[in-house]
């Protein structure tokens, strides 16, 4: 997706804006993950007309989590199921939810904020940025059907086969265990650092499996697809030594980056691209708030994202009320 044209001062292509139907809201929430949906619940319950604009489907990264075990009220629950329940609550409150939208233009600097999608122009008194993060992909020039980022989706294609897992964090080790549970014959884990960062418990469970090999100080230099196989070139980051290995598929879990290219140049971001906010989730722009994984912070969990969303919505309500009162 191309970054939208910046129009911080509201001087976008007015003729194009006028051709689209205008939808008026009090609060526009960009992003339908748990932070955005929680903000929507609080905003709607504060009697604010609210819309969520979601690039893909509501639920965010939680949709990709097989089982969530740190969410109060559930010993264990599938991420997609939990998010569907939250979405149902959001819709029940009368929040408009537009999914699979592409945001083409933003104007956040004026009192009235506008967000233009391919179909509509949305106006709002306040905007909450809750676009979350997305998985980092391998920085390789390859478009192979055999390079994956979802073990739940694609793991079963490799039952009885050999796969490469890229990354040494919690996601990589958790997904390795899931792949092993499916019946993957052999897994090679490569981590660019000289150690794996995954928690001790999950590392112990993976390391005691005799069909898993872990290579630290190793990065993927190239992946080439051959008939039914991937030829992977690995480089030892300490010695520079190159080796090749053949696997049936490659699963990549090397972390996430914030989805903030939409706001770059609009609100203040930190050097890593996260939105800088006050403790009350206010950004550098008046009437623009942020919540969830997209915010610069230490802990990123469903529960902390929900707290952010709640605060952002309550602060947005206060901002709108004070503006009305003059």
């Amino acid at each position, binding site marked *: *997706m191309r970054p939208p044209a910046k129009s911080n001062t509201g001087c976008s292509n007015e003729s194009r804006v006028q051709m689209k139907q205008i939808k008026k809201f009090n609060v526009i929430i960009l992003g339908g993950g748990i932070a955005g949906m929680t903000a929507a619940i609080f905003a709607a319950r504060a009697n604010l007309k609210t819309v969520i604009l979601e*690039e*893909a*489907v509501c*639920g965010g990264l939680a*949709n*990709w989590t097989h089982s969530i075990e740190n969410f109060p009220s559930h010993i264990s629950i*599938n*991420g*997609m199921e939990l998010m569907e329940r939250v979405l149902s609550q959001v819709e029940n409150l009368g929040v408009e939810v*537009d*999914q*699979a939208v*592409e945001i083409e233009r933003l104007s956040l600097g004026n009192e009235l904020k506008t967000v233009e999608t*391919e179909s509509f122009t949305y106006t709002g008194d306040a905007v909450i940025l809750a676009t979350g993060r997305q998985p980092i992909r391998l920085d390789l020039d390859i478009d192979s*059907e*055999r390079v*994956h980022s*979802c073990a*739940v*989706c*694609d793991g*079963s*294609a*490799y039952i009885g086969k050999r796969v490469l897992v890229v990354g040494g964090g919690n996601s990589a080790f958790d997904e390795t265990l899931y792949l092993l549970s499916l019946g993957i014959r052999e897994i090679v884990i490569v981590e660019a650092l000289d150690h794996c960062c995954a928690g001790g418990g999950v590392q112990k469970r993976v390391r005691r499996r005799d069909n898993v090999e872990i290579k630290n100080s190793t990065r993927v230099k190239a992946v080439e697809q051959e008939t039914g196989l991937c030829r992977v070139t690995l480089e030892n980051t300490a010695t520079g030594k190159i080796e090749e290995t053949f696997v049936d*598929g490659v699963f990549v879990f090397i972390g996430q980056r914030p989805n903030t290219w939409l706001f770059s140049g609009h609100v203040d971001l930190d050097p890593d691209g996260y939105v800088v906010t006050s403790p009350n989730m206010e950004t550098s722009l008046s009437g623009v708030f942020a919540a969830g994984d997209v915010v610069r912070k230490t802990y990123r969990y469903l529960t902390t994202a929900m707290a952010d969303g709640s605060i952002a919505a309550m602060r947005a309500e206060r901002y709108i009320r004070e503006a009305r009162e003059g």
Partner: protein
Amino acid sequence: MGFVVQKRNEDFTDKNYRERLNSANGVLIFFKKNCPACKALDKMLEKFFSGHPDVPYLGIDCDVCPGAVKEYDIVKIPTLVLFEKGQVTARKAGLMNLKGMEAFYGSN
């Protein structure tokens, strides 16, 4: 959104898929019910089919039809396959947005 969504025909089994696809036209998605990317792609496809109400929309559940998955060498889901008179004219795996889908469909 108020538009009429093309209903996906996913009445496929390993016993009938060959016969059903023999003269198929339209867009076929290989999906799984627990696949988040499939859910996201499906949401985009709702919008695509609202603009193409005459294009047949077919779906094969990979957990129901492992034989079809093997025959079509599906290793990544969702995978979209375009059919014309039973012949595969194009395929694309992974997520795409509405503009990408329009381009993919329009170029084949």
